């Protein structure tokens, strides 16, 4: 009994179309819909932060511009480019999965992970640690003494929470990419069966979109001229 069940389960997890679906199209649409609904909740989650940011930016414009001015726009732009590059490699990984090229799929998954790692390194080593040394981290080490200091501190609260939550999403993404890489290595995907790769692609591109909004709002609206 147990043996037959295990056999059944094993067989099922390798099947192209899971039992509850009529065909591949229906299965594909079901997983896409699930992923998009998850992304909708993520939009609301980040949306609340963006709403709060917009509100306080309008209330304390001068302080927020002063705070934004203290960030390194060059590193922000570089990181945007890195993340867009990782989105490209992720899209190419989906393409490789769809065309059943296992080695290319693994190569592009690895390059996505590397570019994601580069992003996190720049963020952590060159920005956050630098900002800590400069005394710009509210609660831990905040020594900014210019005009409107309390409101500049509020800007940095938004900055660290928004980029921090974004970085947590990246770290989760790196973990899922590692799992997918192992699955790809074990040959679990084919041109008939690549839904997990495509859903991971949706998630990764979503993180990219969040950063596309964070970059101008945090780094660029600080009147650099």
């Amino acid at each position: 009994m147990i043996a037959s069940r295990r056999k059944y389960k094993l067989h099922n997890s390798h099947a192209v179309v899971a039992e509850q679906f009529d065909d591949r199209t229906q299965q594909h649409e079901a997983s896409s819909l699930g992923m998009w609904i998850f992304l909708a909740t993520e939009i609301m989650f980040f949306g609340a932060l963006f709403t709060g940011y917009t509100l306080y930016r309008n209330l304390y414009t001068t302080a927020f511009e002063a705070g934004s001015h203290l960030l390194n726009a060059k590193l922000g732009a570089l990181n945007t480019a890195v993340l867009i590059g990782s989105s490209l490699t992720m899209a190419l990984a989906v393409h490789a999965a769809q065309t059943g090229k296992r080695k290319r799929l693994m190569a592009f998954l690895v390059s996505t992970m590397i570019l994601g790692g580069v992003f996190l390194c720049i963020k952590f080593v060159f920005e956050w640690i630098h900002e800590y040394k400069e005394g710009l981290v509210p609660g831990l080490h905040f020594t900014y003494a210019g005009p409107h200091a309390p409101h500049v501190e509020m800007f940095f609260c938004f900055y660290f929470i928004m980029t921090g939550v974004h970085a947590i999403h990246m770290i989760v993404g790196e973990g899922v990419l590692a799992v997918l890489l192992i699955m790809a290595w074990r040959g679990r995907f084919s041109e008939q069966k690549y839904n997990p790769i495509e859903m991971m692609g949706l998630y990764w591109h979503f993180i990219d979109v969040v950063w596309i909004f964070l970059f101008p709002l945090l780094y660029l609206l600080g009147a650099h001229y």
Partner: protein
Amino acid sequence: MSEHITSLKIYFIVFFSLLILTVSTWQIAYINLGRWNTVVALIIAVSKAALVATFFMHLRWSAPMMRLVLFAAIFWLAVMMTLTLGDFFSRGAVPQPHGWQTSVVASPPAAAGHQR
């Protein structure tokens, strides 16, 4: 339809457009356009997001249901932003009727422009 395989060419065109838009939004930040800096930055950000969603996230070829979910999310986001900001920025817009007491907690965060 839903299993559409996008051509590599499209991915690279989108990638380079995104890079060009990134460089332009970054460079425009160094030019003083007054209030328009914000507008231009947001327009560029929205177009970049639209490019990613349409091509990288395959919305161009996916079932209408996915687009519906995205529009629902954007709609609710717009509701949240409009009502929240509308509330905050209109506080104090209507003067207090004569004779009302201000015994309750201090004034709301003064309307926009408080500190400029």
